[in-house]
C-alpha cells in the first residue's frame, strides 16, 4: 500500500517503524514541518521537549544507555544543530546508538550564509559514525533505515541526518512496508584457537571488562567465563555494571581512580583479557609500563580498529563479545583450568586496608552520601552522574548490580551530561533516576530541571556542594602547589530555593542525620527533588594513580 507523504511525514513514520516511540528535541524554524507531523502523530510517538538542545541530546543518550534502544533527538538548523554537538560527541566516545535529525535551510539557500544556516554535516563528521544530508526526498526513507542500522550495528554510535526544509515539505510515494538491502550482521566464524592457547597457558589471568560487555548484553557469559578460568573481573568506568558488585571475584574499577585490588590484579596478572574495551589512558596509566615484563594481552572486541590502537595485543578475536564468550565456554577448550591460588590471592586483596579507604571524619563524607543513597533507593534506580570527583565517588561506592543502570560520560567527560541523561534514562526505563552531581557540573545544565518538572520525572538529584571545582582543585593541590586558580566558586546559589523556583522540592543536608532524613523524604516523592549535600572542599578522590603512572605510584591518602 503506497501513499504520498511529505518528507516530514516520512521521517515520523520511519521513526515509529524503528521503534522510536519516545524521542527528544526542540522545535524551530527549519523543523516546523517535522513538528507538525509529530503533532498529528502524537498518539503514536511521544516527544519530550527539553530546555536546550544539548539537554535533548544527552536525554536521547541516557535513554539509549538505559534501554539498549537507539535514542533519537531532533533539532532545528543553525544553533539548534550546533547545540547538539557536545551531546553527539559524548555518545560517540562512549559508543551510544543515537540518531540525530536536524533541519536545515532549503536546498536553494544552502551555502549562502542564510539565516540559521550551518554546515552541521561538516561540523559533526569527526564525531559521528556516519552522517547525511538528504537533498532529495526520494532518498529519505532509505537514509533513515541506514542511519538506524549504522547507529545500532556493530560498535554503536551516533548518526546525524540533516534534512533541508524543502525536502521535508516535498512529497513522494511512500510505502512503509518496503524493505531495503542494508549491510547485514557479521556472521564470520570465530577462530578461538589462539585465545584458548593463551588462556590455558596463563597462571594468573585477569579479566578487564569494558562498555562492550554491556552493549552486547554479555554479563551472564562474563560471569561464567570468569568462573571457568578462575579469573578475577576488573572493569573500566564504562564496564562497571557488567558484573554485580557483590560477586566474589569482582574487584571493581581499575585505573586512575580504581580500586586498589583491581589495579593490583591488572598489574600482577600474566594474561590480561580485555573484553569490549579500548584501553583509555585513564585506565592504563603509563602505556609503556602497563604491559610489564612477560605479560600478555588477549583482546575481544567487535571493532578491529581497537586492536593495537593503544595497547599491543598478543592475540585477539573480533566479533560480538557475547558470542565470543559463549563459544569459548561451549568449546570445552577451557575445561580443567585451575588458577584457584591466584584467584584466592586477588580476592584476599579486597579485604586489605588499601582497598578500603575511609573518607574524612568530616560531618558528611561523600562515601557516606553515596552508600546511603544506594541503601535507600536500592538497585532498581537508574543512576546518572556529571563529571568530576562525584563521578568517581559514585563509580567507587555505589555498588552497581544491573547492566544499564549507570549513565556516565566516560570518554568525553562531559560536565553537564547528567541532567539530560537522567531524564532520558528515567523515561526510557520507567524507573526512578538518581543524579549524582556537583555545584560545578550542575550549574552547566541546571536548566533541565524545568524539563524534569514539566514531564514529572521521578528524579532525585544529589548535589555535592564543596564550593569548588573539586577534581581540578585536587589536581591543583597535588600537582600545582595548591595554586587554586579559578576553582573556588564562591557562588551564592540557594539550591533549595532554586529547586522550588523550578517547581521541584529542595532539601539541604550538612550532616549524616539530615542526609538520611532528606533521602527518605525524597524516596516518597514521585516528582523531581534536589538534595544539596554540603561537603568539605578538601575531600579527595583516592586511590589515585597519577597520570602516566603505574600501580607503584598509587596514592592512597
Amino acid at each position, binding site marked *: 500500500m503506497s501513499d504520498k507523504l511529505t518528507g516530514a511525514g516520512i521521517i515520523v513514520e520511519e521513526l515509529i517503524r524503528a521503534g522510536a516511540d519516545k524521542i527528544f528535541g526542540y522545535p524551530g524554524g527549519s523543523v516546523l514541518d517535522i513538528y507538525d507531523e509529530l503533532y498529528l502523530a502524537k498518539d503514536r510517538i511521544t516527544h519530550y521537549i527539553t530546555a536546550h538542545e544539548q539537554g535533548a541530546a544527552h536525554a536521547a543518550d541516557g535513554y539509549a544507555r538505559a534501554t539498549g534502544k537507539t535514542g533519537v533527538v531532533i533539532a532545528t538548523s543553525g544553533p539548534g544543530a550546533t547545540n547538539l554537538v557536545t551531546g553527539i560527541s559524548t555518545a560517540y566516545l562512549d559508543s551510544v546508538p543515537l540518531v540525530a535529525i536536524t533541519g536545515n535551510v532549503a536546498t536553494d539557500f544552502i551555502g549562502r550564509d542564510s539565516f540559521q544556516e550551518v554546515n552541521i*554535516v561538516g561540523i559533526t563528521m569527526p564525531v559521528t559514525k556516519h552522517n547525511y544530508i538528504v537533498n532529495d526526498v526520494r532518498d529519505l526513507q532509505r537514509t533513515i533505515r541506514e542511519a538506524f542500522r549504522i547507529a545500532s550495528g556493530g560498535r554503536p554510535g551516533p548518526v546525524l541526518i540533516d534534512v533541508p526544509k524543502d525536502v521535508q515539505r516535498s512529497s513522494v510515494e511512500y510505502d512503509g512496508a518496503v524493505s531495503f538491502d542494508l549491510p547485514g550482521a557479521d556472521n564470520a566464524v570465530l577462530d578461538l584457537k589462539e585465545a584458548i592457547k593463551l588462556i590455558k597457558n596463563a597462571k594468573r589471568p585477569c579479566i578487564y571488562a569494558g562498555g562492550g560487555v554491556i552493549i552486547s548484553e554479555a554479563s551472564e557469559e562474563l560471569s561464567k567465563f570468569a568462573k571457568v578460568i578462575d579469573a578475577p573481573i576488573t572493569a573500566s568506568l564504562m564496564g562497571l555494571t557488567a558484573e554485580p558488585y557483590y560477586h566474589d571475584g569482582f574487584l571493581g574499577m581499575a585505573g586512575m581512580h580504581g580500586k586498589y585490588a583491581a589495579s593490583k590484579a591488572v598489574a600482577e596478572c600474566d594474561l590480561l583479557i580485555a573484553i569490549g574495551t579500548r584501553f583509555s589512558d585513564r585506565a592504563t596509566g603509563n602505556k609503556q609500563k602497563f604491559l610489564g615484563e612477560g605479560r600478555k594481552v588477549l583482546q575481544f572486541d567487535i571493532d578491529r580498529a581497537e586492536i593495537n*590502537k593503544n595497547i599491543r595485543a598478543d592475540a585477539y578475536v573480533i566479533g560480538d563479545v557475547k558470542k565470543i564468550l559463549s563459544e569459548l565456554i561451549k568449546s570445552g577448550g577451557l575445561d580443567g583450568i585451575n588458577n584457584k591460588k591466584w584467584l584466592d590471592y586477588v580476592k584476599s586483596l579486597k579485604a586489605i586496608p588499601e582497598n578500603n579507604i575511609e573518607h574524612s571524619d568530616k560531618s558528611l563524607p561523600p562515601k557516606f552520601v553515596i552508600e546511603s543513597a544506594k541503601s535507600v533507593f536500592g538497585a532498581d534506580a537508574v543512576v546518572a552522574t556529571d563529571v568530576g570527583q562525584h563521578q568517581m565517588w559514585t563509580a567507587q561506592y555505589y555498588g552497581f548490580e544491573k547492566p544499564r543502570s549507570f549513565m556516565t560520560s566516560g570518554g568525553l567527560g562531559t560536565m553537564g551530561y547528567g541532567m539530560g541523561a537522567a531524564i532520558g534514562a528515567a523515561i526510557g526505563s520507567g524507573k526512578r533516576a538518581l543524579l549524582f552531581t556537583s555545584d560545578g557540573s550542575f550549574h552547566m545544565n541546571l536548566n533541565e530541571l524545568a524539563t524534569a518538572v514539566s514531564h514529572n520525572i521521578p528524579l532525585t538529584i544529589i548535589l555535592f556542594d564543596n564550593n569548588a571545582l573539586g577534581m581540578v582543585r585536587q589536581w591543583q593541590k597535588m600537582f600545582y602547589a595548591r595554586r587554586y586558580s579559578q576553582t573556588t566558586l564562591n557562588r551564592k546559589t540557594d539550591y533549595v530555593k532554586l529547586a522550588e523556583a523550578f517547581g521541584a522540592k529542595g532539601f539541604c543536608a550538612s550532616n549524616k542525620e539530615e542526609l538520611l532524613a532528606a533521602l527518605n523524604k525524597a524516596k516518597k516523592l514521585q516528582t523531581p527533588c534536589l538534595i544539596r549535600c554540603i561537603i568539605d572542599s578538601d575531600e579527595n578522590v583516592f586511590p589515585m594513580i597519577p597520570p602516566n603512572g603505574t600501580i607503584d605510584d598509587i596514592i592512597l591518602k
Partner: protein
Amino acid sequence: MIKKYTIILLVANKHGVLTRISGLFAKRAYNIDNLSVGKTNVEGTSRMTVIVECDDELIDQIREQLKKLVDIIEVETVMEKPAVMRELMLVKVKHNGDGADSAHVIEAINVFRGKVVDMAPESVIVEITGQEDKLNAFLQYMKGFGILEVSRTGVTAMLRGAKGV
C-alpha cells in the same frame, strides 16, 4: 621503522567522501604524503591513492580506521605487493630562445621520455609520467635551466594481476 606505504581505496562517489577521508587523517593525526582521486570504470565509485609515511603498527591502524568509514568499499595497503605506481607532472621550463639552449632542453626532455606540450619563445611546458623518483630526478635536472612552474597529480596506483581493489 618508518616506511612509505601506499593505500589504494575504492570509495563510493558520494557527497563529502574526500572530506571524510581527509578528516579521518586529520583527527587521528596521520600525515598524508600524497593523495590522488578520480572516477573509475564502475559507476558511482572513485579510486583514491594515499601515500603515508609511518611504521607497521600505524599502517594497520590507518587501514582499520579507514575500513570503518561507511562510504569506503575496499582498502588495500601496498607494501610488498606488486603494484604499478605512476604520477603525472607538468613542468614549465625556461629557455633563452637561442638554438643551442633549446636543443639542450629538448634533449634532456627526450632522455626522461617527457613530452613537450607547449612551446613559447622563452619557455616550454613538459608533460612527464613515471614513478615519483623519476619525476624528482627530472626536476633536479631541469633546475639548471630554470623551473617556472610545477604541477603534479600525485601518485596513483593499481595492483598487478587480475585481482584488484
